[in-house]
């Protein structure tokens, strides 16, 4: 199994630990990742909100680059994933749009055909590699650890054809938590919005929405796992701001789901970038050690 890796801008910077842990986990699971050469920013929700055609075309350039290698794309950032997937799915169904994309790429020497798929690591681990295979590779059981699976918005929404999980009641992260021997904590806010997209333009709204998610998790869970750099920023890096604003202690560690898997696969915390999360992850790392004895 081999994928064209599209890290996206966040994974090169603020979500470094996501990049590190995705690479480590996929290596351990025997999947090869080859970074798309000279990929460009997908424009995220910004390009999308300025010009729909621009958003599609930015994604199309990356699709064209990956098509040259004839590999499906693996995109860990849900926003990149949505943009690339949406374009890829749309040009497959809409000949006219495909022509338009090639018009947009004119003069770049690139052509897009709509011949590859765009996948999220959650999908690949649960459905392509398989949850049983993951469970087989577990060397540290995370027994006793209570984990709140936070899916956020755009991994499972909007619900168009062929999405890999339910938009209202997704289960892929839950199944991963069980496969690594941990417990899925009761958690109402699985798919509630964290307001991450408003982090810059409307801080107050983001803090309110993120706080509700954090407080829910605090009730029943030892940590939250997420699959999104923006959610992670909203819940982890900005947790200290929320604590200050509301004058309370929250202290809920927020891990990328690949960091959790990595711990179970026996990969060192350092290699998983667990020192890069804002809320200390020591308690989680320690509980893993105890479980493995």
């Amino acid at each position: 199994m081999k994928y064209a890796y599209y890290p996206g801008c966040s994974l090169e910077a603020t979500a470094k630990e996501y990049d590190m842990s995705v690479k480590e986990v996929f290596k351990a699971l025997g999947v090869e990742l080859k970074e798309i050469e000279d990929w460009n920013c997908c424009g995220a929700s910004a390009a999308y909100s300025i010009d729909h055609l621009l958003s599609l075309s930015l994604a199309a350039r990356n699709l064209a680059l990956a098509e040259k290698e004839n590999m499906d794309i693996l995109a860990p950032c849900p926003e990149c994933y949505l943009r690339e997937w949406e374009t890829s799915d749309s040009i497959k169904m809409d000949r006219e749009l495909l022509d338009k994309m090639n018009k947009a790429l004119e003069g770049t020497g690139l052509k897009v055909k709509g011949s590859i798929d765009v996948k999220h690591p959650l999908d690949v681990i649960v459905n392509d590699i398989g949850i049983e295979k993951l469970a087989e590779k577990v060397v540290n059981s995370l027994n006793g650890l209570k984990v709140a699976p936070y899916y956020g918005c755009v991994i499972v929404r909007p619900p168009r054809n062929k999405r890999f999980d339910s938009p209202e009641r997704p289960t892929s992260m839950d199944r991963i938590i069980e496969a690594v021997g941990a417990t899925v904590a009761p958690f109402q806010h699985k798919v509630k919005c964290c307001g991450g997209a408003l982090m810059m333009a409307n801080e107050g709204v983001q803090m309110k929405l993120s706080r509700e998610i954090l407080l829910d998790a605090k009730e029943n869970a030892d940590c939250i796992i997420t699959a999104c750099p923006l959610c992670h920023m909203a819940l982890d890096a900005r947790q200290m701001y929320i604590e200050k604003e509301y004058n309370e202690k929250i202290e809920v560690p927020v891990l990328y789901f690949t960091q959790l898997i990595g711990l179970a696969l026996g990969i060192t915390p350092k290699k998983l970038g667990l020192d890069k999360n804002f809320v200390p992850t020591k308690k989680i790392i320690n509980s893993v050690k105890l479980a493995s004895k």
Partner: protein
Amino acid sequence: MEQIIRLKDCDPNFVYEVEEAGGENVHLCFQCGTCSAGCPTVYTMDYTPRQIMRMVTLGIKDKVLNSETIWVCASCYTCQTRCPRGVEITNVMGALKSIAIREGVRAANEKGPAFYNSFVEIALSYGRMFEPLLMLKFAQKSEGSLSGTLKHLLRHASLGMELTKKGKIALMPHKIKGREHMKKIIENIRKIEEEEK
């Protein structure tokens, strides 16, 4: 609440303009309110998503483009997921933002357009995001004055420092080799959009 809608203030083509910009099926809305009921930011909107859909159909362009609503929409797709009529509500909000930006409407909350514009400018010139510049541009655009910009930057300085300490911010931008491609793409898109008019 009594509301008077004057025909002369309505633009019957607005709904098509919105659909063209990516927000489809607005005309199918039957005003059930499911979208507003599940919206996480409705508490801070001036018009609910349901109201916006109706206003778009009626062509009350001015009020829609000047609304707070389109800028506090968090693009979470909850509404679009649940709409029994297949209205692409989130995409409609996105389309409305793009029309407002294109027409230079002074937004109720100027931070929204400031953020999107800063982001896209960087993405298009480098081919990649560069967070320190994004912070700077956003501060300049949303604050306007130098003192406002400095205050804004100071307020976010601690997070920036922490990110730098953890090696989570690049100190120099990564510029892709295909920057010419980005220019070409923008030119081509302008041409396509001209032709389509």
